[in-house]
Structure formats: structure tokens, C-alpha cells
């Protein structure tokens, strides 16, 4: 697609390189073929051997490689050549993708855990001496010395290792939200403060061993959680990187070529189909278009842009195709805002973490319970109040409960990414398990149209090639599946011509100037609207499902299509039906064609000649009946439907506008991703429900013991950490047994209703 030599262009290079203070450059690359560990090592050795290379970091789950090197000694094209020569072709990522955050977070967690571990071991030995000293030979002053040593070694643990709990608790308090960090921070602070006071006084209990073990075990559980979350995130990143935003660049001879949006340089001419994403900042060269800049401004309102006005990268065209002249005002404009879908997919991961309302309620109850325990013991036996209250606070800390959803969901998203499904809204995945109706678009989604080229009928004596060339000039401007099929088929037969002043009317057709006259391509009603025949007089023979090409004097040619259901459509629908999901087709196409496809796929409920508004009405009717509806589509005309459905999925072979509204993106035109997503969603519900039951059960059993003062704080710390660990490990079961039988679906009829508890 793009050669490595193009990256010699400094303007392009500036988009992907990050200059470091030591004079080296840093780049993040997406590498496809990293299959086994040996390959990773070879690649690393080979790149390291290049002159000027300072550091190579290969992240296998994310399929990313980070290189720090001196560009004076090895140029960027040469670096990319070396990757290609090693059998792993690499594609540069935007420079703001060079993220150290993930690695830095891991390093930080590891260090905290180790310091906590080291300190905990030391404190434990000192504590032993104190315990032994109670019964044996250690005299009073030595015991006091060991208390001071315990204090000394706990200080780094509390002020370095446990700092993340304190900052987390402070953040939760600032946001006026009860989270899991608060009880932890409270417990650590209270126990430490009490122990310090007792050490200073020289009498009373000290709990340095308990607090250090608590922090260490908790950090261990958090580290595991972080690892599994990063792995899930990395798998998602790999998929996002593998599907870069593409642009159609006009070559000097007027033909279009597909390049990555990142490769666009200033001055390039770019063609954007209707419903497409603007790939770079630039000046509009078409007469006028409507764009939606919602992804940038958050305000979903169509905006009119006229010739000479600027289009902003990342906005989505609502009407007609557009021609754009790329201009890069600077390195960061345009490219930095691209990949809105990628950003949303990442947000889906971020938004889930810590947004759980149940957790806040849970924490509130734990704090209340702690206070009650303390008060109760103050009445009965004040000397044991502190012990019991701390034990309750630690035992009941809902860490396991709070970890459940984020850990399990991240695991699920990572697994789905491996099956080529990208999730942009984590809550939609949860809802997917509960759907009982699925609404499918036909053309482009369930079926792929193909132009029946021999059946093309010229109606006014032009040659077949001539009418094909005209139709193709119009069709190549549109992103409708029929237009795409026509353009694809015609491209093999005729030399392309270009259409001027093209306007696309949604769910109707395309109009434009070809060879000096205005032509219209579309359904008969649209194509003949400008002609001498009034709408009522259209020949019934012409008003069927074929596409009609017409000028202002009447019809020129008819194009026939035949449709093939997608290879996996039958199996996917069958599986959905078996799981009790009602199926429904809503298509803008003619009744007989929809009926034919519905019969082939064994669907009774179909609706033909549906405008976007009709589809929306259909959806609302279903929702009013209490159904939870999944909508699957691919075209711009499905966008309102996708936006309104409970769960929506779009094929990435469709338009960007549809993708912008969808919760799930099915890559590579594979419908069976839906089944996999649903299987994983069901599994997710199952595992979340199970983990939560565990966590609740553990708390219900442990809290009474703790409240009655039967659980020493150190035992509480162990129990609580183990329950967190259980949840993290349980999450790994999502997507685990998939490999055995992909068609089988989930094991047994799991009632999805049990979940939302």
C-alpha cells in the first residue's frame, strides 16, 4: 500500500516520531507477524544490531514495538526496511500513541509491591520476637527496641507502597464518591496511627505486622489485576492498530488509491464518500456538504460547509461525497484527533473502572458497620473496640466486589478483540446478553450484492461499456453497497471517467455531471424524477428493484444485481434463533427481494421499502413491547437505527457514519462476531454474578466473626486479599474454553436475568 520510502518525507515523519531530549528519536510501530517468542527475540536482536539503536521494547500482546534510536545513523525508511527484512512488516503509529503510561504503571506497581514485601518480611520477624518475648526470655527494653524497629520498617511501606491507596481515597473523596480505596486507606491509616501512638507510649498492642501484610497482599492482588487489565487493553490496541483510518487519495491521473490517513501529506487530493470520515484537516473543494462534528465537539448537529471552507479531521460527512485538499497546519492538528473510534474503544475500557454504583453503596454500609461495631464494643468492652472495628473494616472491604466488573469486562474486551470484534461501549456488551430481538439491515449486512454485468440493459442504444462507464462515474462517489458493487464490477470492464458536482440523496440515488450532462443513478422514482415522465407515469416495468441510469430525457440503462447472503449469515442467524432471539429484517429494498432473502435465511418477520424513519419506528415499536433490541447495520441510513437501539453492531465494511453510532464493530465483514460477542457477554454475566456471590458470601460469613472480635486483623488481611485474588482468577475464565468449539455457543441456557443483582 505505502512504501517505506514515503517515510523519508520529514512532514510525514514528524507525525510519528517523538524527539527526545538526548537527541534520539522514538517511534511506536504496529507489527503484524509476532507469533512466537523466538520471533520476538530475533526481531529484537536484529533491530538492536542496527547502528544508532538505543533501545527496543516489544510488547507482544499489543503487537507494538517501541524503538529509540538516532535518526542520523539509521533513517526511518531504513528502520522500516529492517523490520520488513526480518519478516515482520511494521507500520508507524501516531507519535501520541507512544505511551509510556502502561509500562510506567506496571513498573510502579511492581516496585511498590516489592518494597511492601521486603518490609513486611522484616516487620514479621520483629513481630515474632515481640510475640515470643511475651512468654520467653526477651526482656522489656529489647521488646521496646523491636517495636521501634517495626515502626521504622513500616514507614516506607505506609508512605511509599500504600501511597496509591491514599491518593485514590483522596480522589474518591474529592469526587464525592465512595470507592474501595477509602476503607483500605482508612484501615491502614488507623492501624498505623494507633501502633505509632502505642509505640511512643511504650504500652499497648502494635499492629505493624498486620498492616504491612495487609498492604503487601493487597498490592499483590492489585498487581495481578493490573496485569490482566493491561493484557486485555493490549489485545484491543493490537486490533485498533491493525485497522488504521484509511483515506482515498486521488493520484495524478485521477484514479483513487487507498492509503492510511497517516500517510497523507499537505497538498494531497482526497476523496471522501458519503458517510465517510474526514481523514485530515483540509479545504473543501466540492460545492457544499453537511458534516457532523459530534465526535470532536460533542454536539451532534449537521453543519453546512461550502467550497473553500475547512473541514476538520475526524468529522463525518452526512451528505454527498466531497473532495478535499489536505493541508497540515502543524504536526499535531488533524492527526491527533483522528481515530475517534479507537479513542472510543479505549474509553469503553476506562469508563467502566470505578463507575460502579453498587460499590459505593457497599462501602457506605461497611463504614457504617465499622462504626456500629466500635460503638457496640465500647459499651461492652472498650479495650477490644479498636481491634474488632479494624477487623470489620478490613474483612468487609469490598475490594473483591468492586474488582469484579472491571476485571471481568476488560478480560472480555480483550478476548473479543482477538475474535475481531471491537467494543466501543462496555455497557452495551453487558446488555448484549439480554437481547431478545435482532433487527438486521439486508443489503451490505446480511447479503452482499453483486452486479450481474451481462444482464445490463442499455435502453437507448448506447453500448454496454458506455453506460457502465457513466454509471460507474456516479457509483464510485457513493458508499451505498449497490453503488460499490456496481463500481467494483465496472472497474474491471471500462476505463473510469469522473463525475462533477455529485450529490447523493440518502435511500434514493446519486446525481452528477458526467461528460457534460446531468445523469441520475438510483431507484426508478429518483432517476426519472427530473425527466419528462411524471412520477405517476413511470413504466411499471422500470419500477422494479433494478438500478436505473437516466438523464433529463429519460432512462438510459438498467442494472441488475443478484445477492448472495454472507457466508456466515445463515449459521449466525440460526445460532441466534436457537438462543431464543427473535429475528427481523428491515430493508430499504423491494419486497420481493427481501422476501427471497428472508426465505433463504428462514426469517418470517421482514419489512421491505423501509426508510430510515420507518426502521426507527419499527425499533421503537419493538422496544415499546418490552423487547431489548440488537440492531445490525452497515450503511449511513442505518445510523439513526443504530444510535437508538439497545445494542448496536456495525460492519466495518460499511460507512464510518454507521460505525460512529455502533457499540460493537464487526471487523473483516464477519457476522459470526455477533455470536462470539454474545457468548462472551453471557459468560461475562455468569462470571460476574458468580464472583459477586462469592464476594458477598465471604463477607456475610466473615463479618459477624470479625464484629464479635474473633478475627485478628492479620487474618482479616489474608482473607480479604484472597477473595480479591479469587475474583481476578475467576475473570480469566471468560473466553477460556472458546477454543474447543466455536459453534457451540455458551454452555447451557444461562438465565441472563439472574445477573443484574
Amino acid at each position: 500500500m505505502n512504501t517505506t520510502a514515503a517515510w523519508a518525507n520529514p512532514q510525514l515523519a514528524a507525525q510519528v516520531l517523538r524527539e527526545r531530549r538526548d537527541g534520539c528519536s522514538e517511534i511506536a510501530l504496529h507489527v503484524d507477524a509476532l507469533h512466537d517468542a523466538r520471533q520476538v527475540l530475533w526481531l529484537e536482536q536484529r533491530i538492536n544490531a542496527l547502528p544508532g539503536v538505543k533501545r527496543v521494547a516489544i510488547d507482544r500482546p499489543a503487537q507494538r514495538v517501541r524503538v529509540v534510536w538516532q535518526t542520523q545513523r539509521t533513517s526511518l525508511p531504513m528502520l522500516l526496511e529492517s523490520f520488513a527484512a526480518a519478516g515482520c512488516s511494521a507500520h508507524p503509529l501516531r507519535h501520541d500513541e507512544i505511551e509510556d503510561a502502561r509500562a510506567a504503571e506496571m513498573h510502579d506497581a511492581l516496585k511498590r509491591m516489592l518494597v511492601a514485601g521486603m518490609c513486611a518480611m522484616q516487620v514479621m520477624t520483629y513481630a515474632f520476637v515481640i510475640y515470643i518475648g511475651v512468654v520467653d526470655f526477651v526482656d522489656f527494653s529489647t521488646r521496646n527496641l523491636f517495636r521501634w524497629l517495626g515502626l521504622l520498617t513500616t514507614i516506607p511501606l505506609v508512605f511509599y507502597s500504600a501511597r496509591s491507596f491514599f491518593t485514590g481515597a483522596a480522589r474518591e473523596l474529592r469526587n464525592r464518591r465512595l470507592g474501595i480505596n477509602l476503607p483500605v486507606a482508612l484501615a491502614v491509616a488507623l492501624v498505623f496511627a494507633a501502633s505509632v501512638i502505642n509505640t511512643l507510649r511504650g504500652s499497648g498492642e502494635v499492629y505493624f505486622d498486620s498492616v504491612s501484610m495487609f498492604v503487601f497482599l493487597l498490592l499483590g492482588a492489585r498487581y495481578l489485576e493490573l496485569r490482566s487489565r493491561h493484557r486485555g487493553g493490549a489485545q484491543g490496541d493490537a486490533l485498533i492498530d491493525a485497522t488504521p483510518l484509511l483515506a482515498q487519495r486521488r493520484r495524478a491521473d485521477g484514479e483513487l488509491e487507498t492509503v492510511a490517513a497517516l500517510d497523507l501529506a499537505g497538498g494531497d487530493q482526497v476523496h471522501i464518500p458519503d458517510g465517510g470520515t474526514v481523514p485530515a484537516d483540509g479545504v473543501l473543494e466540492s460545492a457544499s456538504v453537511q458534516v457532523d462534528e459530534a465526535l470532536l465537539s460533542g454536539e451532534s448537529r449537521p453543519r453546512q460547509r461550502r467550497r473553500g471552507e475547512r473541514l476538520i479531521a475526524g468529522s463525518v460527512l452526512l451528505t454527498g461525497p466531497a473532495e478535499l485538499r489536505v493541508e497540515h497546519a502543524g504536526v499535531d492538528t488533524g492527526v491527533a484527533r483522528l481515530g475517534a473510534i479507537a479513542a472510543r474503544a479505549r474509553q469503553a475500557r476506562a469508563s467502566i473502572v470505578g463507575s460502579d454504583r453498587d460499590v459505593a453503596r457497599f462501602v457506605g454500609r461497611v463504614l457504617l458497620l465499622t462504626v456500629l461495631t466500635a460503638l457496640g464494643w465500647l459499651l461492652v468492652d472498650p479495650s477490644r473496640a479498636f481491634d474488632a472495628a479494624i477487623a470489620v473494616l478490613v474483612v468487609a472491604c469490598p475490594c473483591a466486589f468492586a474488582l469484579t466488573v472491571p476485571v471481568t469486562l476488560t478480560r472480555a474486551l480483550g478476548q473479543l478483540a482477538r475474535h475481531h470484534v471491537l467494543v466501543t461501549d462496555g455497557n452495551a456488551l453487558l446488555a448484549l446478553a439480554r437481547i431478545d430481538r435482532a433487527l438486521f439491515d439486508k443489503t451490505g449486512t446480511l447479503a452482499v450484492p453483486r452486479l450481474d454485468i451481462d444482464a445490463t440493459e442499455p435502453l437507448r442504444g448506447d453500448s454496454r461499456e458506455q453506460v457502465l462507464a457513466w454509471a460507474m462515474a456516479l457509483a464510485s462517489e457513493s458508499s451505498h453497497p449497490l453503488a460499490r458493487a456496481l463500481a467494483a464490477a465496472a472497474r474491471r470492464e471500462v476505463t473510469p471517467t469522473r463525475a462533477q458536482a455529485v450529490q447523493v440523496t440518502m435511500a434514493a440515488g446519486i446525481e452528477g455531471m458526467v461528460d457534460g450532462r446531468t445523469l441520475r443513478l438510483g431507484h426508478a422514482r429518483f432517476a426519472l424524477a427530473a425527466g419528462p415522465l411524471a412520477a405517476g407515469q413511470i413504466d411499471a416495468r422500470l419500477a422494479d428493484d433494478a438500478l436505473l441510469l437516466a438523464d433529463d430525457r429519460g432512462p438510459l440503462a438498467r442494472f441488475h444485481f443478484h445477492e448472495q447472503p454472507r457466508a456466515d449469515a445463515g449459521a449466525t442467524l440460526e445460532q441466534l434463533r436457537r438462543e431464543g432471539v427473535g429475528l427481523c429484517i428491515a430493508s430499504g429494498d423491494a419486497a420481493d427481494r427481501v422476501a427471497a432473502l428472508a426465505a433463504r435465511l428462514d426469517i418470517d418477520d421482514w419489512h421491505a421499502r423501509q426508510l430510515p424513519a420507518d426502521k426507527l419506528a419499527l425499533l421503537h415499536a419493538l422496544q415499546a413491547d418490552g423487547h431489548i433490541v440488537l440492531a445490525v447495520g452497515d450503511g449511513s441510513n442505518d445510523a439513526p437505527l443504530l444510535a437508538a437501539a439497545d445494542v448496536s453492531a456495525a460492519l466495518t465494511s460499511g460507512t464510518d457514519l454507521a460505525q460512529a453510532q455502533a457499540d460493537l464493530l464487526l471487523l473483516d465483514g464477519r457476522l459470526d462476531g455477533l455470536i462470539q460477542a454474545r457468548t462472551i457477554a453471557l459468560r461475562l454475566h455468569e462470571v460476574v454474578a458468580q464472583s459477586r456471590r462469592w464476594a458477598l458470601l465471604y463477607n456475610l460469613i466473615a463479618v459477624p466473626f470479625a464484629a464479635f472480635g474473633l478475627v485478628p486483623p492479620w487474618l482479616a488481611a489474608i482473607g480479604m486479599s484472597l477473595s480479591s485474588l479469587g475474583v481476578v482468577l475467576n475473570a480469566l475464565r471468560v473466553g477460556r474454553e472458546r477454543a474447543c468449539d466455536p459453534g457451540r455457543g455458551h454452555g447451557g441456557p444461562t438465565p441472563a436475568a439472574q445477573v443484574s443483582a
Partner: protein
Amino acid sequence: MNILLVLIPVTLLVIVVAVALFFWAVNHQQFDDLDSPAVLPLMDEPPPQDPAGKTDPPPQNT
């Protein structure tokens, strides 16, 4: 028991050294990839230089 007054500072010193070493290792990415180095001893020779620069995987990959 006076030997404790020597031994305890020594253990503390050992901890400080161990933590320092560990921090150095973490900062130098020694813990970033825990999977690949395991197969390092199993590797024969590096893959032959492929002059065509084709994107097929290394031959040893089978």
C-alpha cells in the same frame, strides 16, 4: 543479645541494597517480557538474512 545491635542494621542494609538492585532491574525493563527469554536457550542460530525482504515468517517457525 548485643550482637543484635550489629545484625539488625546489617539486615536493614541488605534490604536497602536489594531494593536498589530491584529498582534498577525494573527500570531497565528486566520484568517487561517474562515469556520470550524462556525460549532463548532453545534457539539455534539467527534466521538467515532474507535479501528479498518478503514478509513470510522465519523458516524455523514451523
